[in-house]
């Protein structure tokens, strides 16, 4: 089977099926990118997985998981100032973390060129919002490409890298979830034959690199001038094209057109190919700056135009301004209802947009474009894996707190604690926010205890400033660090201090050095000890830390299987005679490995149990046990 390593390192041109993220990684190597950085986050971590699949000694590039998106962006920017083509990639909300440095990028001379790959998430498939980062290129004067398919992601990256190098600047490639994860057959080019040039070429003369007072305006002028150059390129770009699947002719005496971008443009193409209507699509690919002249001509050439984009009305606003300035007499229609302004657009939804505006030509989907569930069947929410230390921790912590306790969640696998049966983590905000929120909740509050949860990778990402501040002001809450030793949710990328990259960090010693007065360090499986530790910490007046640690068991079992072929821990069993059907294991502990039967009995699902035994202390009558040695099932 061909591996990711092969896909990235084959020197010759080849074709094969890859997902958008993997295609992007190949594009980086073909374009000669030398420094790639990221902080993992859906929908982009597979780019990193591909870059990381090449053995270190075979890499002609440098790749790192930085501690957060801002650092990742700075590392890539520094490399580019040294003359090396660089790329940083991260998820949509990662831009919020990176933005303090990102906003400065276009002001700087980036000698090697730089590409910023954003993984936006319309539909909020794996994010806390569906923010539209197309706004950011307008705020920072950065050009943007918007691919609709893996093939376009590959081609647009290479073009973005070429232009970034030529203009000594940074260019954005904005992916969306289902471009990142879409798969198709792609035709790749060869890898460059030349060895990368690592000469450090930083020269202050390429700047100024110090934006203060009187240099700010010249720097801004340079950024705006570059943007003007990109405006011309946008008009000439092969990525801004008119698609006319059924030819161009007036329909009922009117010339009709649609202006669209990214996946919705191809959803519309699918809609049109199912009809014979001659409607033109202006598909925008280099979307900022918009191809002004092409758009002006398109508006002039058509009597009615619908603008269809995903999420915010970003392109629409500018197109309407162009229409006004050009005196176009075209009737412009768009998405207007609150439903239309949310979520991903697929062919059902674009069809319904066409049907709303042109009811003579298109019929709405018979059952509604969203195709809502008709049946009343139980939902299946994501849940913590069998053996997850977080489950054990939540179960133990629940026994230590009262109803009035406020529990503050954070981002990571432990976010799932807010779901039944744990119901812990009553708010989730952004990466590392729990300490700050908890501090605010504690002010003037002697009546209700507060627990803040935080994961270990997230702590190093953006959690440290918040918890340090809480420590300095001795805010009265307990921080529970749910430590699993990895960045589990996004696929087990190394976290700082785990020992996988760099030195190990002793977390207890770290908190001691900070001056935290009460620190408890407990294995999450030791539930009674953890319950006692939480009680003691909550009774402590002021800031306290409880480390509830257990390795991510998904990673642990995978690692063991690699080391020991056939590795398996003995699954637990329920002694049906002892079981008094208290249902604690099923309903309160909630491990998915337990199956509840209609007769009230409980069994262990042998597909799921990993033999971790974290459930053993939860049974009030000790009916859960390990099989006796030698006993056969």
């Amino acid at each position, binding site marked *: 089977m061909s591996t990711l390593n092969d896909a990235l390192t084959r020197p010759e041109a080849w074709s094969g099926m890859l997902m958008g993220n993997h295609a992007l990684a190949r594009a980086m190597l073909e374009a000669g990118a030398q420094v790639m950085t990221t902080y993992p986050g859906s929908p982009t971590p597979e780019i990193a997985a591909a870059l990381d699949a090449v053995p270190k000694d075979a890499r002609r590039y440098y790749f790192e998981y930085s501690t957060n998106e801002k650092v990742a962006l700075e590392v890539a920017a520094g490399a580019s100032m040294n003359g090396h083509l660089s790329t940083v990639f991260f998820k949509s909300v990662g831009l919020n973390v990176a933005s303090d440095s990102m906003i400065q990028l276009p002001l700087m001379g980036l000698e090697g060129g730089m590409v910023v790959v954003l993984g936006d998430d319309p539909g909020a498939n794996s994010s806390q919002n569906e923010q539209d980062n197309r706004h950011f290129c307008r705020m920072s004067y950065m050009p943007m490409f918007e691919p609709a398919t893996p093939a376009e992601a590959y081609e647009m990256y290479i073009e973005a890298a070429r232009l970034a190098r030529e203009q000594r600047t940074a260019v954005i490639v904005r992916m969306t979830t289902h471009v990142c994860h879409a*798969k198709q057959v792609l035709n790749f080019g060869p890898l460059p034959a030349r060895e990368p040039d690592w000469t450090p070429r930083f020269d202050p003369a390429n700047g100024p690199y110090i934006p203060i007072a009187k240099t700010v305006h010249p720097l801004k002028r340079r950024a705006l001038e570059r943007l003007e150059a990109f405006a011309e390129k946008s008009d000439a770009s092969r990525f801004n094209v008119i698609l006319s699947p059924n030819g161009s002719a007036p329909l009922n005496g009117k010339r009709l057109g649609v202006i669209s971008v990214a996946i919705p443009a191809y959803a519309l193409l699918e809609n049109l190919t199912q009809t014979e209507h001659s409607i033109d699509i202006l598909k925008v690919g280099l979307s900022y700056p918009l191809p002004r002249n092409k758009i002006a001509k398109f508006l002039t050439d058509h009597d009615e135009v619908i603008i269809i984009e995903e999420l915010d009305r970003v392109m629409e606003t500018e197109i309407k301004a162009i229409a006004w300035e050009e005196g176009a007499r075209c009737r412009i229609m768009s998405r207007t209802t609150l439903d239309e302004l949310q979520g991903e657009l697929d062919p059902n939804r674009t069809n319904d947009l066409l049907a709303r505006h042109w009811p003579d030509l298109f019929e709405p989907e018979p059952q509604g474009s969203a195709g809502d569930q008709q049946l009343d069947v139980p939902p299946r929410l994501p849940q913590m894996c069998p053996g997850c230390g977080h489950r054990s921790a939540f179960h133990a912590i629940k026994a230590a707190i009262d109803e009035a306790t406020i529990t503050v969640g954070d981002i990571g696998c432990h976010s799932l604690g807010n779901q039944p049966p744990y119901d812990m983590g009553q708010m989730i905000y952004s990466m590392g926010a729990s300490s700050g929120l908890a501090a605010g909740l504690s002010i003037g509050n002697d009546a209700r205890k507060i627990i803040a949860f935080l994961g270990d990778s997230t702590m190093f990402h953006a959690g440290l400033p918040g918890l340090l501040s809480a420590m300095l002001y001795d805010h009265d809450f307990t921080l529970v660090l749910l430590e699993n030793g990895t960045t589990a949710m996004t696929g087990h990328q190394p976290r700082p201090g785990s020992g996988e990259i760099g030195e190990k960090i002793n977390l207890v010693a770290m908190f001691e050095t900070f001056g935290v007065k009460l620190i408890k360090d407990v294995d999450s499986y030791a539930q009674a000890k953890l319950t006692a530790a939480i009680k003691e910490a909550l009774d402590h007046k002021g800031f306290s830390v409880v480390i509830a640690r257990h390795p991510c068991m998904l990673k642990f079992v995978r690692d063991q299987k690699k080391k020991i072929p056939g590795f398996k821990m003995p699954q637990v069993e329920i002694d049906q005679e002892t079981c008094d059907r208290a249902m604690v294991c099923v309903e309160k502990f909630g491990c998915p490995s*337990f199956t509840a039967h209609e007769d009230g009995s409980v069994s262990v699902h042998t597909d799921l149990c990993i033999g971790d035994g974290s459930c053993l202390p939860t049974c009030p009558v000790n009916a859960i046990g390990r099989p006796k040695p030698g006993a056969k099932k």
Partner: protein
Amino acid sequence: MKPMNIYLSGVGGQGIGLLTEILSRACLAAGHTVHGCDTHGLAQRGGTVVSHLRLGEAFHTPRVPAKKADLVIGLERLEALRAADLMLAPGKAVVYYDTMYQPIHVRMGRQPYPKNDVLKRVAKEKGARVERVFVDDLPDPRMQNVALLGRIAALGLIEGVSTQVVEDALREVIPEKALDSNLAVFWASGRAA
């Protein structure tokens, strides 16, 4: 070749990614133009996971629109039912592996796990064919996928995707040491068609 929308659904951890990988290789080998995508990220953790495969030159987007699936492949009973309800076009087919993973609402007694006949009822309302796959004494639960593939190939549910074509794809993807046991399940499930 006729365009076809295939929608796969299962529970995170069942190996839907591998199933889709094998199936998409087989579809490519059979001469189809293939677009597709898989669920990645948080939803993998025991939640509903789905994959989309779209065969045909008329498709340019990766996701099967609601109520447009020509074939629903369910790796688990409840997920087969959910997918059939949400995605299946009238007069088409559902193939599912008959296993049960209870979601938390069922384990907590908040909602019952749907009875077997609900899927039959939904399929009947849609004029769809239902094919149940189950293999006794499966050596490894991850082979449920291979059992599904065996049946889909034997029934010829996807144009050009014959038993031989899928077997070739299996040989490409499954590691050498696990190949014989997987092929045994693949053929046994196909014979039961």
